[in-house]
């Protein structure tokens, strides 16, 4: 009986879960192995009998060194970081204020505004990038970080407004009313009482917004042109491939280094990220 159960647990639980883990993580392992493998070993026929694709006996950091010294990769990292931080801060600012207004204040057309902010949340960037490129050009913002800092909030604000609005609704109204009886203005109560309570929600929205702007691709691809202005995703795609030649070691080193910051931020705030993720769809 016990043996049968154990057998069942292997078939229905351990084996599928292990397969999921391997399937999910293998590409990252492969990135890593490729990045530390010397070129001579990388390009060996897939049929060769001596081929050992899953590890290497001569690990090397050459690809990383080349990437950091011979390309503008460090500059891309800084650009991405700067753009992600500023657009996250802008979006949180707007999202906090708008979320509070929609959750707490009574004003005409509140419902309609809430709905239209939700609808903009569902507008994909790929629908707008062509006219937006034209607008960016006419505002003289092309090829500057501001092109991205001002456009990223278009997909970050709706989501953070939505998330924070839900969060504000869970905070009891009595708290605010107490503060107001004690003589606080409505604005003062919002800043001093409600926002501090909402810190976990703000953190969730912030982490989620940061990862989204770190990952954004199409706007960065279309709005930026000079190599030293690019973000990591665009830089890796457009600058590390020379002509038709792929330097896979360097590419994978770039992919790895470009993923680490966002993975680090995520690993410190997993719970907040998950709250943001699940909250973003619940509405």
């Amino acid at each position: 009986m016990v043996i049968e159960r154990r057998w069942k647990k292997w078939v229905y639980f351990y084996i599928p879960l292990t397969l999921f883990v391997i399937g999910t993580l293998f590409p990252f392992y492969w990135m890593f192995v490729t990045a530390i493998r010397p070129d001579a070993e990388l390009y060996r026929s897939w049929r060769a009998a001596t081929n050992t694709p899953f590890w290497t006996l001569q690990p090397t950091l050459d690809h990383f060194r080349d990437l950091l010294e011979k390309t503008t990769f460090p500059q891309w990292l800084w650009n991405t970081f700067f753009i992600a931080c500023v657009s996250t801060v802008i979006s949180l600012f707007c999202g906090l204020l708008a979320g509070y207004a929609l959750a707490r204040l009574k004003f005409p057309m509140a419902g309609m505004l809430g709905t239209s902010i939700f609808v903009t949340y569902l507008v994909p960037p790929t629908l707008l990038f062509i006219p937006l490129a034209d607008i960016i050009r006419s505002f003289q913002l092309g090829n500057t970080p501001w092109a991205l800092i001002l456009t990223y909030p278009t997909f970050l604000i709706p989501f953070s407004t939505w998330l924070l609005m839900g969060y504000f609704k869970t905070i009891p109204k009595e708290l605010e009313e107490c503060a107001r009886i004690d003589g606080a203005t409505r604005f003062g109560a919002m800043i001093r009482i409600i926002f501090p309570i909402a810190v976990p929600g703000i953190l969730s929205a912030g982490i989620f917004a940061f990862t989204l702007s770190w990952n954004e691709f199409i706007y960065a691809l279309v709005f930026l042109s000079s190599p030293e202005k690019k973000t990591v995703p665009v830089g890796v795609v457009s600058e590390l491939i020379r002509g038709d030649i792929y330097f896979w070691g360097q590419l994978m080193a770039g992919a790895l280094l470009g993923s680490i910051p966002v993975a680090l931020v995520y690993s410190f705030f997993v719970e907040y990220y998950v709250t943001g993720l699940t909250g973003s769809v619940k509405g």
Partner: protein
Amino acid sequence: MKKPIAGGSARVEVLAPPRTARRGGAGAWLENERLLAAMLLTPTVLLLGLFIAYPFVMGVWLALSNTSVGNVGEFVGLRNFYKAWNDSIFRTAFWNTTWYTAWATVFKLTLGMWLALLLNRSFRGKRIVRASMLLPFIVPTVLSTFAWRWMFDPTFSVLNWLLYRGGFITTKLPFLSDGAYGMWCAIAVNTWRGMPFFAITLLAGLQTINPDLHEAASLDGANGWHRFWNVTWPLLKPVTLVVVVFSIIQTFSDFQLIYVLTGGGPANSTHLIATYAYQVGVATGLLGEGAAISLFMLPVLFVVVWLQLRYLRRLEA
């Protein structure tokens, strides 16, 4: 004309005797609430208006004109839409987008549900397994897609090596050098990337289900499948629907995955609507035609969003 009158009435209140000023304060406070709301919403409305509503209107205008880079276009009516519809590459792209969205969503939902059910049990190291499962979703899609592209490499593919060593194949599979294979590869990568999102949101839904319900069902003799179908699934349906809608929108409008994996090739056989719009609108510079192509996404997105809104309304009611 209306404003001075409103201002006038406000002044009447101010001029009223101090005794009633306190009561009038409630009215003024209500006014304040509106003012505060307007103040708080201004930055959001401005940014969204400037960079979503305005580009949208502009996009419609571009689609109806023959604008190209460095050339202010003139109105041409529906010619761009007509041209796209009769373009065989566009038709392939449209069909690919539908095919890609449909299969990727089915796979993501099935695998995500399975993974959520596995993660809903308690086991050692659960937190770290759950955290690492989300990695494909966190890491920039472009970068992880590069890893996949290298795994699908025509000459050095590790997957071919595995299949060859495992005795499944004797010649290389043409992963990205064949259109049909290419689409399936893209669907696989999209599934790999999006499945964690399904799993984690469904897991959050699963955790709200009262375990007593399962216990009661199993006391009544329901087996695992019956318990899932009659207890879990009905309770999970609302969150599933929302996740599926989100995923459909993102998959249907996907760009970066195909851009990196195949670039639309070989011979334009793996384009999606978005990548083809990019090729025509940005790479070739025909802004009008590109805008028209991307607007073809709108009807589908509209229907999906409309369903979502209707569903949300019904939930609220």
